């Protein structure tokens, strides 16, 4: 019985495919795999906008939206109506074709990443042999969309925001990919299904997730920081900081295109969180061995919700990073840390299992962390201040 609930979507899909003639079955199979993704994740986006506003409100000692519907639950619908009915203003000197295509490219790139996320047992859209590589390849299309948005608006603030956004994104793509290489090394495959399978065992009641190893934990932290940057989220939202550059590279967009940018950003956030769950948190595996009767997609989505809550929490806590602080952090801390993490994962692999490899690896993770963060702090060279008082 638990297996039936677990595989309910797969069973329903096969049953529906039985009604379709054999020639169009591949097409329908693809459609039936893709349409749930297109339905579920935008719904999750709508729920997340509400959760974020209410969560941020509670963190900031206020209610979130609570007038539209009970506890503000109909607020996403109000937002959707607003963004659909707003006038679509395109600047006169803007490049119309590129201006139109930029949000489309962003959303398409964000949606393509879901093809390799195993949402549950046997529930993946495309079990590619090089799944993780596909994910990062598609993630790099986002930068092009950001450039298109910033350039086509013919607005110098928009261009400035786009330049900053692209610089930020390509700087943090390197630690993102390097942090995932550790997992690929440990699992021995680029396929996401194989990576989840490599984390499927249990030692007693504790799971074998990669996050419970020193290099896995460091990799997870690095991956999550880089994921926050890739989706331009606070505290790395300098390109779109509302108090700084108004809306950055999508300043000239209004109405539905603006909503599409928002959607694309959040979808990217979900996709990267989903990849973090797949790589480090065991995918759809249950956290304890006595909980394996709960369906696998439930675990995936609850882990996703926990990560989203983490994103909202960090957004409500930390102030925005300046551009040079951001770049320093990427190239002087994250990149060396990610490279050392690969070395540490190698050490872990070749040492015999036991307490010694835990100690060695923990020291090898902690020492560079301390040294690199000390190195970051030393940059502040305060000048001698001379005060001139008014005569």
């Amino acid at each position, binding site marked *: 019985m638990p297996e039936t609930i677990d595989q309910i979507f797969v069973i329903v899909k096969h049953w529906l495919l039985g009604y379709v003639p054999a020639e169009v079955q591949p097409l329908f199979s693809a459609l039936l795999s893709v349409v749930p993704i297109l339905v579920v994740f935008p719904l999750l986006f709508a729920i997340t906008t509400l959760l974020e506003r209410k*969560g941020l409100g*509670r*963190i*900031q*000692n*206020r*209610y979130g939206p609570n007038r539209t519907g009970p506890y503000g639950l109909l607020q996403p619908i109000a937002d959707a109506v607003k963004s659909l009915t707003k006038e679509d203003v395109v600047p006169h000197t803007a490049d119309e074709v590129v201006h139109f295509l930029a949000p489309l490219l962003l959303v398409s790139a964000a949606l393509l990443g879901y093809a390799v996320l195993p949402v549950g047992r046997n529930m993946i859209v495309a079990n590619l042999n090089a799944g993780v590589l596909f994910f990062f390849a598609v993630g790099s299309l986002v930068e092009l969309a950001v450039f298109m948005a910033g350039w086509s608006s013919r607005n110098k603030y928009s261009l400035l925001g786009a330049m900053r956004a692209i610089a930020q994104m390509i700087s943090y793509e390197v630690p993102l990919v390097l942090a995932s290489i550790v997992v690929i090394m440990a699992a021995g495959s680029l396929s996401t299904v194989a990576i989840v399978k490599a984390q499927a065992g249990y030692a007693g009641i504790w799971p074998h997730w990669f996050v419970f190893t020193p290099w896995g934990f460091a990799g997870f932290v690095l991956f999550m920081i880089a994921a926050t940057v890739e989706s331009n989220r606070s505290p790395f939202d300098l390109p779109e900081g509302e108090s700084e550059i108004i809306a950055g590279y999508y300043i000239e967009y209004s109405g539905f295109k603006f909503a599409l940018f928002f959607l694309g950003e959040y979808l990217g956030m979900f996709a990267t969180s989903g990849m973090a769950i797949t790589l480090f948190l065991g995918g759809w595996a249950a956290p304890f061995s006595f909980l394996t009767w709960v369906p696998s997609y439930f675990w995936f989505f609850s882990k996703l919700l926990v990560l989203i809550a983490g994103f909202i*929490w*960090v957004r*409500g*806590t*930390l102030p925005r990073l300046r551009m040079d602080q951001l770049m320093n952090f990427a190239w002087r801390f994250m990149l060396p840390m990610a490279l050392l993490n690969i070395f540490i994962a190698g050490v872990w692999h070749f040492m015999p299992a036991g307490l010694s490899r835990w100690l060695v690896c923990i020291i090898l993770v*902690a020492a560079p*962390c*301390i040294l690199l*963060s*000390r190195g970051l702090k030393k940059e502040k060279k305060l000048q001698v201040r001379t005060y001139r008082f008014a005569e």
Partner: protein
Amino acid sequence: MFGEGLLKGMAETARNFLGSYVSKDRLTTVQFPEERVAPIEASRNFPFLVYDGKDWQQGMRCVSCLICEKECPPKCIFIEKSTDKKPDATGKPQFYPAVFNIDVSVCMSCQICVEVCPFDAIKMDVAFELSTDNRFDDLLWDKQRLAKSNEYYGKIHPTEAAAVDAQLAEGRAKLEAKSKLTTEAKAVGAAVPSAQTVSGVTE
């Protein structure tokens, strides 16, 4: 080194988040218009005319001295003095304003009219839910709209109203005492010559 500052910050926000469901001072929002903050006594919005007693035309304190109209900086008070007199609260016949209009869209709530009024006839109101849908006509308030009772004044500005009432009562008591003295003196003066004439006649 390991980001303890960040973790401390996150712990603080978590405390805020969880505390907002439990304690009131971690959720300081007052859900207007269902809940309201306690009104502050020294607040002010737009002026109103005070009347004593029940009849707003009879008991209105304003005697149309035109001082507030002259002192108003944006000139938003428009008064027309009446031609006849009516008895005021103490019974003395006074002029009264036949027309008293305040253009609220111009009024800047500076309270100068209140400060210069010698009769405590115009005071500042605190009502702020004043939105209308006609920009010009509904924002020119006439005498009837401006007239509010002394009890209302006492409700919105208790200490001020008590002071004004005490002052007015003192003034009225002094006036009564003076008039009693003069009537007594007149009575005595009337009695003495009558006594004298009576005595003169008898003599």
